[in-house]
């Protein structure tokens, strides 16, 4: 079933054992869009992202990347090459330098030769502002630098979209800004992104759409200003204002 969306999720359900975590999620992203998912802890936000690239295969529902049905494809590794994933805990390979982390997908998965991979890795590290740390190992980097390596690693694969699972939640507040700046630039350059975050300031200024989830359902989705100023559901307003209190408006 072809769609004109870049990513489309239809009636996604997921359970861990008896526990139904996602109870029918539908959403879609067009090329160049940035959407932000917010919601209380344990609501299933990470599960959605993991379902999309089948790190956790969904129980039912359909997910498409352009015309390809991800949920049924036999070539999931090809899909994963086209969808970047940025982890809350960075997921950097500890035995490789920053450059090595960015190169490995190119050399091992895309079978690119080393020279070319190195060139791309350096470009992407420069792009996220840490070209000077190419030869540092993860343990030698700050949290913000690690996460920028994580983003560079995703970017190097030239993905059609990038999924971010709370990319700044393990960072000290003063390091959050440098990562959000990188993400804001990506949004401006037209990268398609689906982001789980509690950073309301960022969401308000960067997201094309805000998706509020609770209890395995999407309660409300729409332009951030509408959800903040004029939400359909009382719960949405309560939650968004609680988050803004907790995390502030961001660096805006």
């Amino acid at each position: 079933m072809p769609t004109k969306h870049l990513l489309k999720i239809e009636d996604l359900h997921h359970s861990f054992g008896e526990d139904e975590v996602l109870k029918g999620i539908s959403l879609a992203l067009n090329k160049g869009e940035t959407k932000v998912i917010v919601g209380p802890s344990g609501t299933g936000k990470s599960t959605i992202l993991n379902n999309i690239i089948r790190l956790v295969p969904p129980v039912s529902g359909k997910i498409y990347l352009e015309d390809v049905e991800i949920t049924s494809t036999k070539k999931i590794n090809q899909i994963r090459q086209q969808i970047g994933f940025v982890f809350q805990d960075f997921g950097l390979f500890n035995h490789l330098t920053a450059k090595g982390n960015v190169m490995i997908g190119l050399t091992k998965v895309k079978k690119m030769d080393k020279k070319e991979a190195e060139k791309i890795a350096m470009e992407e590290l420069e792009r996220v502002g840490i070209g000077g740390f190419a030869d540092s190992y993860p343990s030698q980097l700050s949290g913000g630098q690690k996460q920028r390596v994580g983003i560079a690693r995703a970017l190097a694969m030239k993905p059609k979209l990038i999924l971010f699972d709370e990319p700044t939640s393990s960072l000290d507040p003063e390091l959050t800004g440098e990562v959000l700046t990188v993400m804001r630039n990506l949004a401006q350059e037209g990268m398609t992104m689906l982001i789980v975050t509690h950073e309301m300031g960022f969401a308000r200024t960067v997201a094309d759409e805000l998706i509020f989830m609770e209890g395995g359902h999407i309660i409300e989705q729409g332009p951030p200003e509408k959800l903040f100023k004029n939400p359909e559901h009382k719960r949405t307003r309560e939650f968004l204002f609680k988050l803004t209190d907790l995390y502030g408006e961001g660096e805006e």
Partner: protein
Amino acid sequence: MLDIFLDFYPLLFRGLGVTLLITLISCTSGTILGIFLSLGKIYGNKLVSRTVTAFIAIIRGTPLLVQLFIIYYGLPAYGIRFAPITAAVISFIINSGAYQAEYLRGSIQSVSSGQLKAALSLGMTKWMGIIHVVLPQALRRVIPAWTNEFIYMIKYSSLAYVIGAKELMTEGKLIASRNFQFFNVYMVVALIYLVVIIIFVHLFNKFEKKVAIPGFDFER
């Protein structure tokens, strides 16, 4: 003692050569066996995993000398005959492989599951992730256990004397049974083991430093 060494060093060094050969082959082949066993135990299906678990339990739960005797004296009853050195090496490989499999399993499981998840997210298959991401870290972590294993193996390889493999201990025994200077001969043999082991410990420490990665802790 010095005169014994001077009189017999060609024999002793020949024995030492065999000892080191047995140790080297047993330990490195044991590592390869250990890698397969540990991967089978962790990532294999139920059948593979259980077979490996049982195999490791049997090997670790029976004396090395019994294993050696089964291979050298027992198998010929079924028409399988090995030269003493071959029999020794086979039993040491099996034994070392089982122990190394357990060390490796520990270090593989200490590499966080997030590492494999990140590898998969780049489009690697599970096996690519294991080979390019999990094993390089697990193997580094297992180096201290591996060097211990190597040192033990130098010493355990002396067990091969009971089936007459001509390693260092056997040569010592032959010399002593001719000149009856048991104390002096075995002291010389002991000193040779000691010096060799000190040299290897030093080399391994250097190697550990060489492959060390900042912030990447070795086990223990």
